[in-house]
């Protein structure tokens, strides 16, 4: 079992999941969500990385062989999507905090379900 980018990304994924579940602060949950997506991106990139590979730019004096460029294209999209999700989630967290004056997710949950029932 080697320590490489993939194992690190799985570890980060696990840490982020624990953060998402165990921490009550909404902002920390958002950070955990961002970390989940980032670790997936890390997994995608490091799966196809090679120690002797070159960046996928074609050079005229041909140097070492380039790595697979398709995961890089995927990662570009994934990063932008991650950014968009975090921005919108942050907006909603801001709205909730303004309304309930707390970042505690359990308190918000309780107050929302009380409102729903009444």
């Amino acid at each position, binding site marked *: *079992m080697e320590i490489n980018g*993939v*194992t690190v990304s*799985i*570890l980060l*994924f*696990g840490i982020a*999941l*624990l953060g998402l*579940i*165990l921490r*009550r602060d909404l902002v920390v949950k958002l950070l955990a969500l961002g970390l989940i997506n980032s670790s997936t991106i890390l997994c995608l990139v490091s799966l*196809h990385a090679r120690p002797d590979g070159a*960046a*996928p*730019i*074609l*050079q*005229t004096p041909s140097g070492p*062989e*380039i*790595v*697979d*460029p*398709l995961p*890089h*294209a995927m990662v*570009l*999209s994934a*990063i*932008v*999507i991650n*950014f*968009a*999700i975090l*921005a*919108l989630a*942050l*907006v*909603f967290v*801001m*709205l909730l905090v*303004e309304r309930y004056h707390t970042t505690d997710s*359990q308190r918000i949950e309780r107050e929302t379900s009380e409102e729903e029932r009444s």
Partner: protein
Amino acid sequence: MTRSASRIRLLPAAILLVGAFCAALWLTFDYAGPGEPDIARWIDTAHTTGSINVVSAIYLNARLFDTLLEVLVFSVAVLGVRFYLDERGRRESVESIPESHVLRLSSDLLLPLILLLGIYLTVYGHLSPGGGFSGGAAAGTGLLLAAIALGADSVAQRFHESILERVEWAILLCVFFLAGISAALGRTPLTDLLPPGTPGRLASGGSILLYNILIGAKVFIGTWVMIHHFIQHRGEI
């Protein structure tokens, strides 16, 4: 249910499931890949499109549809920020941080460099790593620096909100036009109609340069709009 009690119930279940998940991924991950991946087809793709940045050739030509959708995701995000942080809660003026010589001086030096870097990344996106997304994000962050140093209101005065909005929609429509024009001419949709040119020069890569510029402008404006709305809603920077 008291807070600590519910958390205690959660903790062992969380550790068990998350640990099992990671273990499942770790242990069942089969590193024996299918052998050497077929990179030659991507090099041929890059040659066909005329750009020497292979990744640009992929996401701005072969898989352009993904990029279109991604630009739409970004636009929806900006739209959402604008809609929810609008009207109520908007402060009239933004308190800026106290005047600092060091900040002012360094931003005077750095801001043109950052903007220039953003433009370089965008325009040379088909010749070196970069592209519209990274260039636009860099330039947008540069505007954030300007907002910190010069005050958000003065930066906002130069970039009127209504004009920015119209430019954004114009850019989106241009992107759709570029993408859809091949369908209108009867060929397969999303084909590149411009000639590839000589690889390595600025005017090469077909429409990749145009897409990079449009996307760069869109991301630049979008990033600034998002940052500005957050600043205005908070009331201070």
